[in-house]
């Protein structure tokens, strides 16, 4: 890092800070009260929790594309892992790795596993009424997977590549299929029939949780080096 680079970065940073400060100070307070609009529309949405309603009803199309983003990232990660690199650094058993494989961790893991599973399912279920939902539940499941992987699979279960790919894609595929099915019924894309909205949303959240967990875990586990450690 050269002095000139640091200096110009500092100047840029200061410039951005001042500009943003001015922008925040002079913010006009015109416009729409969208929060009130959301509140009024909640009864029609089929879910009680406002954020879930925004994510899976009002702006569900954004969420669909967001899951696509996650899927793309996971696909690229898998693609780069598959390809044989020209000069791969050999896998190493580092000091940190050894330290991690302790009986303590294994015990912790055995204890945490059911707790985290329950937490994930609770978060998913809670999402319809209160904070929680597919993303948080998926992240907890992914964390579970990370823990599982770091200490070696305690249950001796390994999942085949085809299954993993299926789990990766199922959230997006179900979401897309359900949304497109509405087109066949002559409705707009992602326009759930009111009486079915709740059940559809919960079903989608469930598969989304699975796929989010598998994608996040896949991103974690599919670095080129980590691939070498897997059977």
């Amino acid at each position, binding site marked *: 890092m050269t002095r000139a680079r640091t200096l110009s970065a500092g100047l840029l940073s200061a410039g951005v800070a001042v500009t943003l400060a001015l922008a925040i100070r002079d913010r006009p307070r015109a416009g729409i009260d*969208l929060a009130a609009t959301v509140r009024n529309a909640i009864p029609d949405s089929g879910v009680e929790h406002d954020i879930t309603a925004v994510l899976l009803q009002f702006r*569900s199309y*954004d969420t669909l594309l967001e899951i696509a983003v996650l899927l793309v990232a996971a696909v690229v990660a898998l693609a780069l892992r598959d390809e044989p690199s020209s000069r791969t650094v050999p896998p190493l058993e580092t000091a940190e790795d050894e330290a991690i494989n302790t009986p303590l961790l294994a015990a912790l893991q055995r204890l945490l596993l059911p707790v985290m599973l329950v937490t994930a399912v609770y978060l998913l279920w809670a999402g319809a009424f209160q904070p929680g939902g597919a993303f948080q539940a998926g992240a907890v499941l992914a964390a579970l997977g990370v823990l599982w992987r770091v200490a070696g699979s305690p249950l001796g279960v390994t999942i085949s590549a085809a299954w993993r790919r299926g789990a990766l894609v199922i959230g997006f595929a179900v979401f897309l299929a359900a949304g497109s099915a509405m087109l066949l019924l002559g409705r707009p894309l992602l326009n759930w029939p009111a009486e079915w909205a709740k059940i559809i949303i919960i079903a989608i959240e469930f598969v989304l949780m699975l796929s989010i967990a598998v994608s996040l875990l896949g991103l974690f586990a599919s670095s080129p080096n980590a691939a070498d450690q897997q059977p």
Partner: protein
Amino acid sequence: MMSDALRAALIPLVIVVPLCWAVLCLVQPRRSPSLLVVPGLLLWMVVSLALCWDVATTGVSMHVLGGWREPLGIALRADGLAAGMALLTALIAAACGGYRLLTPPTADDPTAQRWFWPLFFMLGASLNAVWLAADLFNMYVGLELLGLSAVGLVAVSGSDNAVSAALRYLLAALLGSLAYLLGVALLYASYGTLALSGLAELVTHNTTTHVAFALITIGLCLKTALFPLHGWLPPAHGVALSPVSALLSALVVKASFVMLLRIWFSGGVGLLSPPMAQLLGVLGAGAILWGGWQALNHPDLKSLVAHSTVAQIGYLFVAIPLLASGASPGLAWDGLMLQITSHALAKSAMFLASGTLIVAVGSSRVEDLRGVNRHMPLALFAFGLAGVSLMGLPPSGGFSAKWLLLQTALAGGQWHWVATLLGGGLLTAGYVFRVFRASFENSSDDRFDHTPLGWDVLALLLAGASILLGLAGSAPLGLLRTGASIPGLIP
């Protein structure tokens, strides 16, 4: 006769069809790809054609996603620009997909084939999502999907250079989207809506709004690779697989530019001040000259073509002050639309032809093209036709584009753009002829690899379409004017 339900479904179908094929290609990778991919490309084309037909005959239409109206929900808006770009996307994607399908299998193919197609269809879907978007945050998500798919496609070609180019591309894309998102945050905090149409009604002149638009503009210019923010483009477009380079240069950089057009002219109506417009134009002029000069001097063929993209993007930005001046907005709009479309066709043709030449010669250096004229006449002809359009020689689409822009500049008394447009044409001629001079040099070396005839046909079709735009431009221009929101423009 189309039923009303089908007509209403056309807008989302343009996005849903490629999304479905992305999923299908992901879960069924072992199948021979053509069986799956070709029907997908055809269906995609049919849906895009139907959408164009619908917009051309009945005008702008909206699709209210989820049945939730703006500002609560998100709508897709199919105007002429969106429908036209969707059709262009389908055409170029079909050509690039066909080129890829005709590529003879090589050692690294199983993995490359398997992961290429899901990303390819995701890229197509995200392009269509951006063309049809009418919501600031939805545009952000669409742009991120586009960026990550594009980076992925650059990376899957697998070489070390591809990885570093993909990383550089990714960093630029991420920085660009963050600047954009920060601008959107300021706008939402100010006006409480994300819908472009809603914003247009509320927006006023104040510091926050100006800062927001500046951030959005900087972010999108970085993503469009406007000089001097273009550094990431030549490595990424130069190192990717040729059909990927073609898609990136023809369409992906245009996505952020179209967003910029929509945000300035549909969202922030009346906000674009003349000095700001002139600044964008000056940067565009810089791009034309700098990109042209770099292309003139680069030893590598695909990097030459990539630098040519930097230069041709400059023309898009030169059109902005011409549009904003309002002297003859119809001419400026038509010129800009022709520049977008004819460059997309010509540049994809040029990348496909370059890819063919590189495979035949076995080297990517321009000077190694010696003697290629006798062995690869069709590929070279396609390259030349595309070059004619890029230079702006009659009767090509590129000529009409530059001619219209020139006329607007003269009509508005903006003489300084005239010199830039002419200088840019000369530089383009320079780098195209550089390739030809190298190709026509005699060589005793006869060791050229065989390439599929289909490759040449696809490149020729695209280059021919780019020329044809100059001869029969009125129908597409009529479509592209539908619903355009430029002050003073008569649709």
